[in-house]
Protein backbone atom coordinates (compact mmCIF):
# COMPACT_ATOMS: atom_id res chain seq x y z
CA UNK A 1 0.00 0.00 0.00
CA UNK A 2 1.39 3.41 -0.85
CA UNK A 3 1.90 6.20 1.62
CA UNK A 4 -1.02 8.33 0.37
CA UNK A 5 -3.49 5.52 0.81
CA UNK A 6 -2.12 4.82 4.29
CA UNK A 7 -2.58 8.48 5.23
CA UNK A 8 -6.17 8.40 3.99
CA UNK A 9 -6.92 5.31 6.05
CA UNK A 10 -5.22 6.91 9.03
CA UNK A 11 -7.45 9.99 8.71
CA UNK A 12 -10.45 7.70 8.43
CA UNK A 13 -9.48 5.77 11.54
CA UNK A 14 -8.99 9.02 13.44
CA UNK A 15 -12.45 10.17 12.39
CA UNK A 16 -11.16 13.20 10.49
CA UNK A 17 -12.97 12.09 7.32
CA UNK A 18 -15.97 9.89 6.63
CA UNK A 19 -15.87 6.53 4.84
CA UNK A 20 -17.37 8.12 1.71
CA UNK A 21 -14.72 10.83 1.65
CA UNK A 22 -12.01 8.21 2.13
CA UNK A 23 -13.37 6.18 -0.77
CA UNK A 24 -13.38 9.24 -3.03
CA UNK A 25 -9.83 10.16 -2.00
CA UNK A 26 -8.58 6.62 -2.63
CA UNK A 27 -10.24 6.65 -6.06
CA UNK A 28 -8.53 9.96 -6.83
CA UNK A 29 -5.15 8.61 -5.71
CA UNK A 30 -5.60 5.53 -7.87
CA UNK A 31 -6.42 7.70 -10.89
CA UNK A 32 -3.23 9.68 -10.32
CA UNK A 33 -1.06 6.56 -10.42
CA UNK A 34 1.05 6.82 -13.61
CA UNK A 35 0.47 4.12 -16.18
CA UNK A 36 3.49 2.02 -17.07
CA UNK A 37 4.88 2.84 -20.54
CA UNK A 38 3.66 0.54 -23.31
CA UNK A 39 6.08 -2.24 -24.12
CA UNK A 40 7.73 -2.10 -20.73
CA UNK A 41 8.01 -5.38 -18.91
CA UNK A 42 5.36 -5.66 -16.20
CA UNK A 43 6.83 -5.24 -12.76
CA UNK A 44 6.46 -8.25 -10.52
CA UNK A 45 3.63 -7.84 -8.06
CA UNK A 46 5.01 -7.24 -4.57
CA UNK A 47 4.17 -10.01 -2.18
CA UNK A 48 1.56 -9.04 0.38
CA UNK A 49 2.75 -8.92 3.94
CA UNK A 50 -0.45 -8.34 5.84
CA UNK A 51 -3.96 -9.72 6.08
CA UNK A 52 -6.45 -6.90 6.57
CA UNK A 53 -9.96 -7.17 7.95
CA UNK A 54 -12.03 -3.97 7.80
CA UNK A 55 -15.56 -3.84 9.16
CA UNK A 56 -17.51 -0.60 9.09
CA UNK A 57 -21.06 -0.12 10.18
CA UNK A 58 -22.47 3.34 9.51
CA UNK A 59 -25.56 2.57 11.57
CA UNK A 60 -25.89 4.13 14.96
CA UNK A 61 -26.24 0.97 17.07
CA UNK A 62 -27.30 1.68 20.63
CA UNK A 63 -26.86 5.40 20.13
CA UNK A 64 -23.08 5.09 20.31
CA UNK A 65 -22.49 6.17 16.75
CA UNK A 66 -20.98 4.32 13.81
CA UNK A 67 -18.58 1.47 14.50
CA UNK A 68 -15.45 0.40 12.74
CA UNK A 69 -13.01 -2.47 13.14
CA UNK A 70 -9.70 -2.39 11.34
CA UNK A 71 -7.33 -5.34 11.90
CA UNK A 72 -3.96 -5.82 10.24
CA UNK A 73 -2.22 -9.13 10.88
CA UNK A 74 1.17 -10.05 9.40
CA UNK A 75 0.90 -13.15 7.19
CA UNK A 76 4.03 -14.36 8.96
CA UNK A 77 1.96 -14.53 12.14
CA UNK A 78 -0.51 -16.83 10.41
CA UNK A 79 2.34 -19.05 9.26
CA UNK A 80 3.76 -19.21 12.79
CA UNK A 81 0.33 -20.09 14.13
CA UNK A 82 -0.06 -22.84 11.56
CA UNK A 83 3.29 -24.31 12.56
CA UNK A 84 2.07 -24.40 16.16
CA UNK A 85 -0.95 -26.45 15.14
CA UNK A 86 1.40 -29.17 13.89
CA UNK A 87 2.27 -29.77 17.56
CA UNK A 88 -1.25 -30.89 18.43
CA UNK A 89 -0.97 -34.55 19.49
CA UNK A 90 -2.78 -37.14 17.31
CA UNK A 91 -5.05 -38.18 20.20
CA UNK A 92 -6.40 -34.64 20.43
CA UNK A 93 -6.91 -34.52 16.65
CA UNK A 94 -8.90 -37.76 16.70
CA UNK A 95 -11.09 -36.36 19.47
CA UNK A 96 -11.66 -33.23 17.42
CA UNK A 97 -12.54 -35.42 14.43
CA UNK A 98 -15.16 -37.24 16.47
CA UNK A 99 -16.72 -33.97 17.63
CA UNK A 100 -16.66 -32.57 14.08
CA UNK A 101 -18.42 -35.70 12.83
CA UNK A 102 -21.04 -35.30 15.53
CA UNK A 103 -21.61 -31.72 14.37
CA UNK A 104 -22.05 -32.85 10.77
CA UNK A 105 -18.63 -31.73 9.53
CA UNK A 106 -16.89 -34.91 8.37
CA UNK A 107 -13.37 -33.53 8.08
CA UNK A 108 -10.39 -35.69 8.99
CA UNK A 109 -7.90 -33.25 10.50
CA UNK A 110 -5.20 -35.94 10.72
CA UNK A 111 -5.03 -35.79 6.91
CA UNK A 112 -4.34 -32.07 7.01
CA UNK A 113 -0.55 -31.72 6.90
CA UNK A 114 1.32 -28.52 7.85
CA UNK A 115 2.58 -28.11 4.28
CA UNK A 116 -1.04 -28.10 3.04
CA UNK A 117 -1.91 -25.25 5.39
CA UNK A 118 1.28 -23.45 4.34
CA UNK A 119 0.16 -23.69 0.72
CA UNK A 120 -3.26 -22.40 1.73
CA UNK A 121 -1.68 -19.33 3.32
CA UNK A 122 0.51 -18.79 0.27
CA UNK A 123 -2.63 -18.61 -1.87
CA UNK A 124 -4.26 -16.15 0.54
CA UNK A 125 -2.37 -13.40 -1.32
CA UNK A 126 -5.04 -13.25 -3.99
CA UNK A 127 -8.04 -13.56 -1.72
CA UNK A 128 -10.39 -10.60 -1.48
CA UNK A 129 -13.71 -10.83 0.29
CA UNK A 130 -16.17 -7.95 0.13
CA UNK A 131 -19.50 -8.09 1.88
CA UNK A 132 -21.69 -5.06 1.34
CA UNK A 133 -24.86 -4.72 3.32
CA UNK A 134 -26.86 -1.63 4.23
CA UNK A 135 -25.96 -1.96 7.89
CA UNK A 136 -22.33 -3.06 7.56
CA UNK A 137 -19.47 -3.51 5.16
CA UNK A 138 -16.83 -6.22 5.59
CA UNK A 139 -13.62 -6.40 3.61
CA UNK A 140 -10.93 -9.09 3.89
CA UNK A 141 -7.86 -8.72 1.73
CA UNK A 142 -4.08 -8.95 1.70
CA UNK A 143 -1.79 -5.98 1.18
Amino acid at each position, binding site marked *: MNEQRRQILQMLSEGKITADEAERLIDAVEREQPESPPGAAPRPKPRPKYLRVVVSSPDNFGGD*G*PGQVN*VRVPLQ*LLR*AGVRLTSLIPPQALSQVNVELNKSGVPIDLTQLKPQHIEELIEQLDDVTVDVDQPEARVQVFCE
Partner: protein
Amino acid sequence: MIPQLVAVRHRRTNGRWLRLYIPVLPVLLVLSPVLVLAVLAGLVACVLTRISPVGALRGTGQLLCALPGTRIEVQQGRTALLISVH
Protein backbone atom coordinates in the same frame (compact mmCIF):
# COMPACT_ATOMS: atom_id res chain seq x y z
CA MET B 1 13.10 -9.71 16.05
CA ILE B 2 10.75 -9.72 19.01
CA PRO B 3 8.35 -6.76 19.43
CA GLN B 4 10.02 -3.62 20.74
CA LEU B 5 7.04 -1.48 21.60
CA VAL B 6 3.34 -2.02 22.09
CA ALA B 7 1.24 1.11 21.75
CA VAL B 8 -2.25 1.14 23.25
CA ARG B 9 -4.51 4.13 22.68
CA HIS B 10 -7.95 4.42 24.15
CA ARG B 11 -10.41 7.20 23.41
CA ARG B 12 -12.95 7.56 26.15
CA THR B 13 -16.54 8.75 25.81
CA ASN B 14 -15.50 12.27 26.75
CA GLY B 15 -13.23 12.32 23.70
CA ARG B 16 -9.95 12.27 25.65
CA TRP B 17 -7.23 9.88 24.59
CA LEU B 18 -5.36 7.60 26.97
CA ARG B 19 -2.05 6.61 25.41
CA LEU B 20 0.14 3.80 26.72
CA TYR B 21 3.49 2.96 25.18
CA ILE B 22 4.84 -0.30 26.58
CA PRO B 23 8.51 -1.09 25.91
CA VAL B 24 8.51 -4.86 25.65
CA LEU B 25 12.10 -5.70 26.54
CA PRO B 26 12.25 -3.77 29.87
CA VAL B 27 8.87 -5.22 30.85
CA LEU B 28 10.12 -8.72 30.03
CA LEU B 29 13.21 -8.11 32.14
CA VAL B 30 11.11 -6.96 35.09
CA LEU B 31 8.81 -9.95 34.73
CA SER B 32 11.64 -12.42 34.05
CA PRO B 33 11.28 -14.32 37.37
CA VAL B 34 7.61 -14.93 36.63
CA LEU B 35 8.41 -15.78 33.00
CA VAL B 36 10.94 -18.42 34.04
CA LEU B 37 8.28 -20.08 36.19
CA ALA B 38 5.75 -19.83 33.35
CA VAL B 39 8.17 -21.42 30.88
CA LEU B 40 8.91 -24.24 33.32
CA ALA B 41 5.17 -24.83 33.85
CA GLY B 42 4.69 -24.81 30.09
CA LEU B 43 7.45 -27.37 29.58
CA VAL B 44 5.92 -29.65 32.21
CA ALA B 45 2.54 -29.28 30.51
CA CYS B 46 4.16 -30.17 27.17
CA VAL B 47 5.67 -33.34 28.64
CA LEU B 48 2.34 -34.32 30.22
CA THR B 49 0.41 -33.76 26.98
CA ARG B 50 3.15 -35.44 24.85
CA ILE B 51 3.91 -32.30 22.89
CA SER B 52 7.51 -31.70 21.86
CA PRO B 53 8.84 -29.02 24.28
CA VAL B 54 11.47 -27.92 21.76
CA GLY B 55 8.85 -27.56 19.04
CA ALA B 56 6.56 -25.64 21.38
CA LEU B 57 9.36 -23.25 22.38
CA ARG B 58 10.37 -22.75 18.76
CA GLY B 59 6.75 -22.18 17.72
CA THR B 60 6.18 -19.67 20.50
CA GLY B 61 9.36 -17.83 19.51
CA GLN B 62 8.25 -17.69 15.87
CA LEU B 63 4.87 -16.40 16.96
CA LEU B 64 6.49 -13.63 19.04
CA CYS B 65 8.85 -12.68 16.23
CA ALA B 66 5.95 -12.43 13.77
CA LEU B 67 3.98 -10.04 15.97
CA PRO B 68 5.55 -6.70 14.87
CA GLY B 69 3.31 -4.99 12.35
CA THR B 70 0.10 -6.17 13.98
CA ARG B 71 -2.47 -3.42 14.30
CA ILE B 72 -5.94 -3.65 15.77
CA GLU B 73 -8.36 -0.73 15.76
CA VAL B 74 -11.87 -0.83 17.11
CA GLN B 75 -14.08 2.25 17.11
CA GLN B 76 -17.63 2.68 18.25
CA GLY B 77 -19.02 6.16 18.20
CA ARG B 78 -16.79 8.36 20.33
CA THR B 79 -14.90 5.50 21.97
CA ALA B 80 -11.98 3.75 20.32
CA LEU B 81 -9.23 1.28 21.13
CA LEU B 82 -6.11 1.09 19.01
CA ILE B 83 -3.36 -1.47 19.63
CA SER B 84 -0.26 -1.62 17.49
CA VAL B 85 2.85 -3.73 17.88
CA HIS B 86 6.15 -2.35 16.60
